[in-house]
């Protein structure tokens, strides 16, 4: 088990390093990307900003799966997994908001003071992050661990149900800086197809990094849970 984890960890680390090298390829290499006016080198942000959202979505799905598991089996470990996945998802969501804000400021809003423009996708993503923040507020309001696990799991499923609508359906109905609003699935017409050769591996790589952080936190929380139960046994 530990051996398998170490192999997966090494694969993710090497994979991400190659992605980073690919993301900065230039000149005569085959991954060279064309220079688009205004975007220029910032087009490479596609490899970093967008995978944040893919990672967030993957982790919210993982969180929902473990929430169902928690409701079915009442297992405290499922509760830990569900909570941890939501935590890492929120982290990646905040990183996605921050990177998007910086990117837009230096391209579409170059020369202005705008950092936040209420772009539909931006606003909906912020709402999405807040919905998951409320999950933690809800958890902190409940003291009984078993009750907390069940109520939080139910809320988690409702929160996950909003993900496709807030991140996909609604932003595409409205005028936006983000591609997709014109009916195009995800990439703009100006996005060079060669960018997909780095973009998709980057999505996988960042999901892998999210998974590493997730497993670390799960192991830590499980060890703490066991320590607490030992402590309680010693008291009574």
């Amino acid at each position, binding site marked *: 088990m530990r051996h398998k984890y170490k192999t997966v960890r090494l694969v993710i680390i090497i994979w991400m390093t190659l992605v980073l090298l690919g993301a*900065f390829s230039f000149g005569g290499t085959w991954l060279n990307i064309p220079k688009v006016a205004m975007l220029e080198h910032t087009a490479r942000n596609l490899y970093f900003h967008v995978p944040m959202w893919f990672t967030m979505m993957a982790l919210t799905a993982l969180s929902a799966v473990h929430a169902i598991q928690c409701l079915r089996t009442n297992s405290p470990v499922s509760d830990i997994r569900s909570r941890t996945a939501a935590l890492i998802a929120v982290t990646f969501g905040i990183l996605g908001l921050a990177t998007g804000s910086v990117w837009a400021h230096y391209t579409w809003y170059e020369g202005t003071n705008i950092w936040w423009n209420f772009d539909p996708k931006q606003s909906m993503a912020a709402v999405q992050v807040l919905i998951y923040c409320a999950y933690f507020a809800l958890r902190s309001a409940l003291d009984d661990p078993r009750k907390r696990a069940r109520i939080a799991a139910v809320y988690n499923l409702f929160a996950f149900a909003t993900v496709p609508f807030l991140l996909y359906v609604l932003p595409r109905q409205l005028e936006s800086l983000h591609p997709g609003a014109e009916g195009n699935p995800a990439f703009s017409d100006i996005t060079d197809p060669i960018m997909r050769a780095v973009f998709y591996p980057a999505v996988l790589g960042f999901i892998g990094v999210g998974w590493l952080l997730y497993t*670390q936190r799960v192991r830590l929380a499980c060890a703490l849970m066991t320590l607490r139960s*030992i402590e309680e046994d010693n008291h009574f």
Partner: protein
Amino acid sequence: MSMILLLIQAARNIETVMLDNDKLLVVLAVVLIIWIGIMIFIYSTDRKIDRLESLVKALRSEEEPPIDRS
């Protein structure tokens, strides 16, 4: 002496490469430094968790009541 000259030449070449292409490789260098730092952090955290888990395991085996074999 020629060795030193060679090293200086290599350093100069690195500088030309780094300043080429609108200094894009400087950003790559920065990103790689951050990534190496994060990798070290992930590995050392994993090691700490390993140690914590073995400690918890040891405590737990102490906790378990001795098996009555009578």
